[in-house]
C-alpha cells in the first residue's frame, strides 16, 4: 500500500455529534472539492466516491456499472464471508437480464394504482395503532409501539406472512442491516429468514391465499422461478418492506419534533394531500436513511467529471450527500416541507431504484398526515442528545424514540 492510499479518507464516515440528521461533515467537504474523489475501505481497497448529485444520477443510469457482488473486485462496505459472496442474495445484487426477469415478476404488485388502492387499509392500521398509543402508558417507545408495527403489518398483509411471527423476522432483519455484526452472524440471520420464507412459500403452493407469496408459489410450479429465487425475493421484500419505512417513521418524527415550525405546517395542513406528499419527499431527501451509499463495479472505462473510472474500479455513490448538493437543492441543509424535492435519490436511481417506493410513500403519507394531528402535543420524553442513533446500520434511524404527550 502506498502512502497516498493510507492518507485517503476512510469510508463510511460518522455523523457529527449533535447533528443526527446531517451527513458526515467530511462528505460535505469532499463534495465542495469536486463531485468525485477516492476513499479507502476497511480492507484497504480504494474505490471512487461520487458526491455530486448530477454525477450520481448519470452513473446510476449507466449500464457499464454492475451491481453483481459476485464479480471479483466488487467493493464491500463491511467484511463478508468469501464463500457467502452473492449466495442467497436477491435481484438487487444482479445485473440485467437476470435482474429484470426477476424484478418484473413482482413489479405489478407495487404499481402506483395497485398500491393507492391500499390507502384505506393502511389508514385503518395507522388509526388502530394510534388508538393503542392513546390508550396505553406514557412515555412509550415510538419505534416498538408504532414505527415498526405499521410497515410490518402492511407488508405482512401484502406478502401473506403471518404478523404473529413479527418477533422472529424483525429480530433477524435487525441483524441483517447492522454493520457491526460479524459476517457469520449476518449470514446465519439471512439463512434463518430464507428457510422461513421457503417454508411459507411451500405452504402457499398447497393452499394459495391470493397474496404475493402465493403468486411466487404459482410461478415456481410453472417453472418460471426456482424455490431459492422465490425465497430470496421474499426475504428482500419482507426486510426492505418494514425496516426502511420504520426508520423513516421514527427518525422523521424525531426530525419534525426538532423542527417545530415545520411540524406545525403538517399539524395545520395535514389534510392537504399535496403538502403531505411533498413533506414525504422532503423528509426522504433530508434524512436519506440509505446512508452507506449505493455500491457498484465499473465494467468498461467511463469518463466523467474529468476523471476516468477504469474497468474493475469500485464506485460508491453517496446518495446522502448527493441529496444535500446545493446545485440540485437550494439551501440544501434546511428542512422545508413545501420544497419541490421529488427528484431526490433517497430511493437510489437507475434500474435498481427502490421497487417498493410507492408503498413506502403511501405509508409515510398516511403516518405523517395522521399521527401529529391525532396527538398534537406529541413530544420527546428524553433529551434529544440521548436518543440512540443507528450509526452502525446499513440503514440509518433511531433504535428507540421515547415520546410522551
Amino acid at each position, binding site marked *: 500500500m502506498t502512502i497516498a492510499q493510507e492518507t485517503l479518507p476512510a469510508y463510511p464516515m460518522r455523523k457529527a455529534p449533535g447533528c443526527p440528521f446531517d451527513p458526515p461533515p467530511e462528505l460535505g467537504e469532499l463534495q465542495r472539492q469536486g463531485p468525485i474523489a477516492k476513499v479507502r475501505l476497511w480492507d484497504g481497497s480504494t474505490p471512487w466516491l461520487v458526491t455530486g448529485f448530477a454525477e450520481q444520477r448519470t452513473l*446510476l*443510469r449507466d449500464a457499464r456499472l454492475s451491481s453483481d457482488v459476485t464479480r471479483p473486485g466488487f467493493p464491500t462496505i463491511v467484511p463478508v464471508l468469501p464463500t457467502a459472496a452473492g449466495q442467497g442474495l436477491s435481484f438487487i445484487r444482479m445485473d440485467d437480464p437476470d435482474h*429484470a426477469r426477476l*424484478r*418484473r*415478476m413482482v*413489479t*405489478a*404488485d*407495487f*404499481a*402506483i*394504482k395497485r398500491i393507492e388502492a391500499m390507502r384505506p387499509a393502511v389508514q385503518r392500521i395507522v388509526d388502530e395503532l394510534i388508538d393503542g398509543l392513546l390508550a396505553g402508558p406514557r412515555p412509550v417507545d415510538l419505534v416498538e409501539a408504532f414505527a415498526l408495527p405499521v410497515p410490518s403489518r402492511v407488508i405482512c398483509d401484502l406478502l401473506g406472512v403471518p404478523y404473529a411471527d413479527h418477533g422472529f423476522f424483525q429480530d433477524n432483519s435487525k441483524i441483517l442491516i447492522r454493520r457491526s455484526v460479524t459476517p457469520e452472524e449476518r449470514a446465519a440471520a439471512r439463512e434463518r429468514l430464507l428457510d422461513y420464507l421457503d417454508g411459507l412459500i411451500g405452504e402457499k403452493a398447497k393452499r394459495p391465499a391470493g397474496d404475493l407469496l402465493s403468486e411466487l408459489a404459482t410461478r415456481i410450479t410453472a417453472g418460471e422461478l426456482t424455490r431459492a429465487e422465490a425465497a430470496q425475493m421474499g426475504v428482500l421484500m419482507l426486510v426492505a418492506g418494514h425496516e426502511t419505512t420504520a426508520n423513516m417513521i421514527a427518525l422523521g418524527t424525531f426530525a419534525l419534533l426538532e423542527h417545530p415550525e415545520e411540524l406545525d405546517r403538517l399539524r395545520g395542513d395535514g389534510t392537504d394531500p399535496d403538502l403531505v406528499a411533498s413533506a414525504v419527499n422532503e423528509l426522504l431527501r433530508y434524512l436519506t436513511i440509505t446512508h452507506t451509499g449505493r455500491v457498484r463495479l465499473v465494467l468498461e472505462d467511463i469518463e466523467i467529471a474529468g476523471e476516468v473510472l477504469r474497468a474493475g474500479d469500485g464506485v460508491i455513490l453517496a446518495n446522502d450527500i448527493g441529496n444535500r448538493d446545493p446545485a440540485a437543492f437550494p439551501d440544501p441543509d434546511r428542512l422545508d416541507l413545501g420544497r419541490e424535492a*421529488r*427528484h431526490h435519490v433517497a*430511493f*437510489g*436511481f*437507475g*434500474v*435498481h*431504484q*427502490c*421497487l417498493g*417506493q*410507492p408503498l413506502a410513500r403511501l405509508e409515510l403519507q398516511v403516518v405523517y398526515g395522521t399521527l401529529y394531528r391525532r396527538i398534537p402535543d406529541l413530544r420527546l420524553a428524553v433529551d434529544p442528545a440521548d436518543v440512540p442513533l443507528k450509526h452502525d446500520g446499513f440503514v440509518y434511524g433511531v433504535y428507540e424514540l421515547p415520546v410522551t404527550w
Partner: protein
Amino acid sequence: MKLTVDQDVCCGAGQCVLLAPEVFDQREQDGIVVLLDENPAGALHDVVREAGAVCPAGAISVEEDR
C-alpha cells in the same frame, strides 16, 4: 411534443404515473410503462418533461417541437 417510451429498459418504478397519469400507465401483468398519449397537450408539457427527468431507467424520450 412527441413522446416515446422504451418498455425494454423500464423498471416499473411508477414515477411517471405518479406525475402524469393522463399520459402514462403501467401494464397490468408486469407494471411496465404504457404510453397513453404520445402528443400530450401543452398544459402537460412541463410535467411530462419532469417525468422524463425523474425516470430512473431513462425509459422516456421527449422530442420537443421545433
